[in-house]
C-alpha cells in the first residue's frame, strides 16, 4: 500500500471523525431540543386538562341550573341524564331513576312521536315539537320539545333535548279562544246590527244581524262606504256629522233612517263609539244598531191617534153646540107661538086653558135648561184653560156672599181655604153646586153649612157639611151619574153633580160623601196641590 494511499485513507478517516463529532454534536443539540419540547408539551397538556375540567364543570352548572328541563337519552329513549327541572316536569322520583321517555307518551300520540324520532335521527335535530305526555305521577301535560343528536366521532350515540311545559299556556290560549268564540257568538247572534268601519268610513266588518237588518250580503257591504249606502238621503248629512264627531272621540246615540236593499225605510237607534288600537290611536269606529221601526211606528201612530182624538173632541164639541142650537130653536118657536095665542086671545080663554098654556111655558124652560146643562157637561174638559193659582179663600168667600141663601141657614168656614192650581171658573162651579145643593135640601128650622179643608200630602181634602135631609146610602153612587136627580124639580136637571165630578177629576181629585137620612150630609172632595 502506497504512502499516498495511506495518507489519503488517514485524511479520510480524520474527515469522518470530524463529521461524526459534528453529527454527535447536532444530535446532542437535537436531544436537548426534544427534551425541551416535551417539557413544554407536558405543561400545555396539564393546562388543557385544567381548562377541560373547568369547562366541564361550567357546563355541569349550566345543566343543573337551566330553568327548562334538560334531558339526555340514549337512542332507545332511556334517560341517561336529567336536571332538576326535568325531574319535576316529568314527575320522576330523582335524577338517577331509570326510565324510558317513550313510556310517557300517550298511546294516541305514539305515531307522531315515532315519526319525529325518526326525523331527529335523520336530520340531527327537531324543533317546536309539541306532544301530550302522561308523567310518572299520571298527570297529563302538554310539552314543547327542541332536541338534537349527540355524535361521537360522527356516530350518533345519544340525544339531548330541552322540554318545556306548555300545558298552562295552552290552557290560557284555549280559554282566550273560548272567550273569543263566546263574544263572537254573542256578536253574531245578538239582535243588534254591528258594523265596524275604518277612518275613511269604509266598512271592515258586519255581523249577521246587520245583514238581516239591511238585506245586503257581507260582500255587498264590506269595503263600501256606509254613508253612501245605508242612510236615506235626508239623513246623510246627519250621519256624516256624527262620524266626524266620532273621529274626535265622541261616543253617542242617535236616531237614523236607513234604506234597506229593497228600498224599505227603517228607523235605527245607532250607538257609535270610536275604535282604538293598542297604542290608543283612533282606527275607526264601531256602531251598534237597533231597529226601532216598530217602536217608531207606534209612536207615530200614537201621535196620529192623539191628533185624531183632539179633532174628534173638537167635532164632538161642535156637534154638541149644533145639537143644542137645533133643539133650542123649536122651543123658542113654541114659546113665541104660545105667547101669541095668549096675546091674540086675551080675555077669550078660560082659566084652565091659561093654566095649561102656562104649563107649556114652564115645560119649555125646563127643557131649555136641560139642553144648556148637557152642553155645559160636554164642555167641561174641552177648551181646557191653563191651570193657574186660585185663591179659594177669596173666591169662595165672595161666592158665598153673592149666593142666594135663606135667613135660617148659616154658612161658616172652619179653616182658611188654600191656594190651589186649577181653573177658577170651574172650581167656583164645584163649590157653588155643592153649597146650593145643601141649601136646597136643608129641612131644619136652623140650617148650618160648614166648609172645611184638610192638608193631605199631595192633595187638599175639602168637606162641605150640612144638617139637611140626608141621602140614603143606596143613592150615594147614583147621584154623581148624569140625569140622576133625586128630587124632581124645576130647577134641577140632574146634571149638576156629574159636572162637579167631572171637574174634580180634571183636577186629579175624587169626590164622595157621608150621609145619614134626616141628620145631614157631608160632601168630601180632594184637589191636587
Amino acid at each position, binding site marked *: 500500500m502506497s504512502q499516498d494511499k495511506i495518507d489519503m485513507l488517514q485524511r479520510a478517516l480524520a474527515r469522518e471523525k470530524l463529521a461524526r463529532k459534528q453529527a454527535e454534536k447536532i444530535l446532542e443539540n437535537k436531544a436537548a431540543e426534544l427534551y425541551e419540547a416535551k417539557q413544554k408539551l407536558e405543561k400545555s397538556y396539564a393546562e388543557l386538562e385544567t381548562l377541560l375540567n373547568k369547562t366541564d364543570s361550567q357546563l355541569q352548572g349550566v345543566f343543573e341550573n337551566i330553568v327548562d328541563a334538560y334531558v339526555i337519552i340514549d337512542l332507545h329513549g332511556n334517560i341517561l341524564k336529567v336536571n332538576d327541572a326535568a325531574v319535576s316536569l316529568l314527575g320522576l322520583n330523582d335524577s338517577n331513576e331509570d326510565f324510558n321517555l317513550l313510556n310517557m307518551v300517550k298511546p294516541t300520540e305514539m305515531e307522531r312521536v315515532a315519526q319525529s324520532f325518526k326525523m331527529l335521527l335523520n336530520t340531527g335535530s327537531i324543533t317546536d315539537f309539541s306532544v301530550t305526555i302522561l308523567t310518572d305521577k299520571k298527570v297529563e301535560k302538554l310539552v314543547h320539545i327542541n332536541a338534537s343528536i349527540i355524535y361521537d366521532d360522527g356516530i350518533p350515540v345519544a340525544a339531548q333535548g330541552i322540554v318545556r311545559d306548555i300545558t298552562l299556556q295552552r290552557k290560557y290560549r284555549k280559554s282566550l279562544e273560548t272567550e273569543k268564540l263566546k263574544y263572537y257568538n254573542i256578536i253574531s247572534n245578538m239582535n243588534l246590527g254591528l258594523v265596524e268601519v275604518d277612518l275613511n268610513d269604509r266598512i271592515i266588518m258586519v255581523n249577521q244581524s246587520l245583514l238581516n237588518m239591511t238585506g245586503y250580503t257581507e260582500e255587498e257591504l264590506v269595503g263600501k262606504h256606509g254613508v253612501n249606502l245605508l242612510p236615506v238621503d235626508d239623513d246623510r248629512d246627519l250621519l256624516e256629522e256624527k262620524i266626524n264627531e266620532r273621529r274626535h272621540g265622541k261616543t253617542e246615540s242617535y236616531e237614523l233612517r236607513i234604506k234597506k236593499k229593497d228600498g224599505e225605510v227603517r228607523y235605527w237607534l245607532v250607538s257609535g263609539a270610536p275604535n282604538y288600537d293598542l297604542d290608543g290611536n283612533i282606527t275607526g269606529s264601531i256602531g251598534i244598531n237597533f231597529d226601532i221601526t216598530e217602536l217608531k211606528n207606534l209612536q207615530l201612530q200614537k201621535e196620529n191617534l192623539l191628533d185624531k182624538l183632539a179633532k174628534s173632541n173638537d167635532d164632538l164639541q*161642535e156637534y154638541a*153646540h149644533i145639537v143644542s*142650537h137645533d133643539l133650542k130653536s123649536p122651543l*123658542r118657536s113654541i*114659546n113665541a107661538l104660545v105667547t101669541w095665542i095668549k096675546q091674540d086671545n086675551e080675555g077669550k080663554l078660560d082659566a084652565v086653558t091659561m093654566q095649561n098654556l102656562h104649563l107649556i111655558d114652564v115645560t119649555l124652560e125646563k127643557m131649555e135648561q136641560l139642553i144648556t146643562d148637557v152642553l155645559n157637561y160636554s164642555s167641561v174638559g174641552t177648551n181646557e184653560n191653563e191651570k193657574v193659582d186660585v185663591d179659594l179663600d177669596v173666591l169662595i168667600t165672595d161666592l158665598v156672599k153673592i149666593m142666594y141663601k135663606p135667613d135660617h141657614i148659616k154658612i161658616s168656614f172652619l179653616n182658611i181655604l188654600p191656594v190651589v192650581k186649577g181653573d177658577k171658573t170651574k172650581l167656583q162651579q164645584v163649590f157653588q153646586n155643592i153649597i146650593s145643593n145643601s141649601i136646597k135640601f136643608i129641612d131644619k128650622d136652623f140650617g148650618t153649612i160648614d166648609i172645611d179643608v184638610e192638608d193631605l200630602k199631595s192633595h187638599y181634602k175639602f168637606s162641605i157639611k150640612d144638617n139637611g135631609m140626608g141621602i140614603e146610602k143606596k143613592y150615594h153612587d147614583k147621584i154623581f151619574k148624569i140625569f140622576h136627580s133625586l128630587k124632581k124639580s124645576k130647577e134641577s136637571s140632574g146634571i149638576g153633580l156629574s159636572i162637579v165630578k167631572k171637574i174634580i177629576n180634571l183636577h186629579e181629585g175624587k169626590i164622595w160623601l157621608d150621609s145619614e137620612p134626616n141628620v145631614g150630609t157631608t160632601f168630601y172632595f180632594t184637589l191636587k196641590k
Partner: protein
Amino acid sequence: MDKTLNILLIEDDMIEIMKFNRTISQLQLNHKVIEANNGEDALKILHKKDELPDIILLDLNMPKINGIEFLGILKNDDVLKYIPTIILTTSSNQKDLLECYKIGIAGYVLKPLKYEDYVSKMEKLLSYWSINELKQI
C-alpha cells in the same frame, strides 16, 4: 126723531121671521124689513146695490152658505163691508163668537127662549141703531 132703518134680516126659520115682524109691529116701529131665507138670497139682494140696507141681522146657522162664510164674503166686498152686521143666534159657542168678532161684526145677540125677552132685546137693539149715524152708500 129717530131714523127709520132699512133692515136686512137673514134667517131661514119661518117662525123667527114672524117673530121679528111681529116685534116691529108690536113696538109700532116704522123700520123696513127685507127678508132673505139664506145667504145666497141675501147676496142677490145686496148685489143689486140699488137699495142697500142700513143694518144686517144675521143668523149663524143657515143651510148652504153658513153665517160665518156669509160674513166673510161681506167683509171682502169694498162696498158691503161698511154695513153694520149684527149676529142673531142661539150659539153661545165661544169659538163662533171669537171668529165673528175677528172677521168684523157690529154685535152678537143671543136669541132668548121667551118671546117677551126677545121683544125687549130687539127693542133695545133697534133703538140703538136708530140713533146711530150710518154711512150713506
